[in-house]
């Protein structure tokens, strides 16, 4: 399967953070993808379909699967940080300091020193609970915890991204882009609000190698509407990567990718349901 030059990207995140058609389907899928070998198998199916990158919110099973997968396949990870569902849960249970401490203690000694020194230089902003600083620090710690994985692109989690876009906080994005540059990797944006991203970032949008945003023939999750989004995509198709291509499983893999191809977008993100459906169909 190809998308006519468009790069295919597998999208991984904890299976418990997705929507399902039924409770039974949810439990079956979550149980299956709690096993690293099942996630690894999914990666191989995506690879067979042509996926050559993995956009991932990394939890323990996904991390283990990707470590194994990258031993055999030259497929980079595009890391989405922080894992907001885990972070919000930690915030509720442990408070802000406890949530930060939990992430800090997961780091290796070198990363601890680096993070500690970085935090010292930003103590004032941390004390003020500055949004961009806090977000960047947590993102850095989670990124550091991904040691061993080959990461080539860095994205903020959409739950953070949309808040930053709503508030017009371009600093959250420029801090991410700066951090990515320091690490010698690229920065990207995952959003349901690409027009807002373009408005908030203006020319700075050019610093982000990829903007992952919904694109499908039904206009599903394309806000404010399909026409406005497609106008934006057409202006610079090489910067945009299509998400929600199957419109919540309402569009079959073939027509979904044909639509992306017709718009000339840089790539398409494929969720596990799409991958399994396409793989079994031998599309």
């Amino acid at each position: 399967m190809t998308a006519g030059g468009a790069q295919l990207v597998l999208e991984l995140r904890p299976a418990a953070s997705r929507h399902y058609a039924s409770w039974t389907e949810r439990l079956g899928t979550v149980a299956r993808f709690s096993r690293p070998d099942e996630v690894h198998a999914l990666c191989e199916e995506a690879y067979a379909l042509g996926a050559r990158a993995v956009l991932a919110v990394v939890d323990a099973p996904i991390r283990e699967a990707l470590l194994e997968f990258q031993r055999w396949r030259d497929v980079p990870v595009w890391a989405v940080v922080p894992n907001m569902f885990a972070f919000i849960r930690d915030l509720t249970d442990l408070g802000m300091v406890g949530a930060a401490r939990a992430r800090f203690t997961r780091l290796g000694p070198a990363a601890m020193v680096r993070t500690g020194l970085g935090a010292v230089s930003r103590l004032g902003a941390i004390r003020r609970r500055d949004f961009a600083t806090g977000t960047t620090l947590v993102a850095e710690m989670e990124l550091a915890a991904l040691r061993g994985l080959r990461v080539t692109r860095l994205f903020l989690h959409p739950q953070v991204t949309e808040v930053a876009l709503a508030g017009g906080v371009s600093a959250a994005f420029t801090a991410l882009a700066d951090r990515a540059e320091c690490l010698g990797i690229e920065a990207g944006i995952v959003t349901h609000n690409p027009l807002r991203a373009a408005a908030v970032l203006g020319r700075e949008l050019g610093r982000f190698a990829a903007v992952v945003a919904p694109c499908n023939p039904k206009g599903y999750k394309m806000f404010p509407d399909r026409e406005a989004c497609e106008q934006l995509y057409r202006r610079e198709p090489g910067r945009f990567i299509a998400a929600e291509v199957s419109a919540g499983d309402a569009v079959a893999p073939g027509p979904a990718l044909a639509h992306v191809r017709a718009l000339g977008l840089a790539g398409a993100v494929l969720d596990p349901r799409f991958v399994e459906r396409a793989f079994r169909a031998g599309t």
Partner: protein
Amino acid sequence: MSGRPPLRAAVVGAGRMGMVHGHLLQVHPETELVGLVDRDLSLADHLASQGLRAPLYPSIEALYGATNPEAVFICTPTHTHLAVVRECLARPVHLFVEKPLATSRADAEAILRLASDARVMHAAGYVYAHLPVVQAAHQLVAKGVLGEVLRFTAHAYVSEVFGPKQGWFFQKEQAGGGVVANMASHLLFILGWLFGPIRGVTASTRSHFSRVDDSAQVLFTFATGVRGLLDTSWSVPGTQMLDYGLTIDGRNGTLVLGRERILLHLLVPAAGHDAGWSEIHASDLPADTAFDVSPHIGGEAFYRQLQTFVDACRNGVLPFCSLAEACNTQRMIEAIYASAAAGTPVEA
């Protein structure tokens, strides 16, 4: 955009929900965020760093002294809602109150009385009722597509509580309860909107981990004769966001409501729907949303909820999600806890 001047609104309570509403009020083309209120003024820098540009005031009195909002969004802990509503209504402002409305039916009804006496528009924050698929399901039932509704089964699950929890959200006196009041109430609101007031309930609740109810099973009888079952828990694995489902059986068929689709089975055609199975997918329904503030939780429903409230304020017509409907939800919550405490059926 309508060309109307923006609705000037303030947010009381700068916690998580207050920030969500604040952001939406800034983004929505028909609203303007004119102030935030929180006793913790040390939040000012944090809020500003998130791009919430309106001033932070330590009290409603200070807010009113500095600006003149037309509407107030109340996002404080539940047990404070009545006092905050009373204070806000020192002026005739439209009210949006986060769910649940109160910690008791008496407080909820007092809030409704205050708002009604002040002749202001009002709404409650049961956001899932604003999802396009939920609204489509309501239309189908209201149009009588299923014929006489006989029964339903429903669930509301989330993976949240697996050990002792801290904070006001897990104190019954402050939050009004546990999973029933704070998570399942989303579904209770939808059930009340679909089927009207309840006649009685038989309920059982349990606290597995926290000091409030972590799970509940409820048998409802509605005044219309509709009967149904709800199972809910925030201590089940597998779902990081609220997973709900609702299956409704009527004399002419069955409707299955999920997060992204409605499955419909009809015995005979009705209101343009064929006999047999059909599906209505979320992608077939207009989203009418300009900004998605929370892609994984709530999604477009937050924006639609705000639009509904703005329209109500501008048109002077109470919305379907008014505090009166939220009072119905509060009656259900209270009846569930009363039945569980008594171990017997309770008339509402």
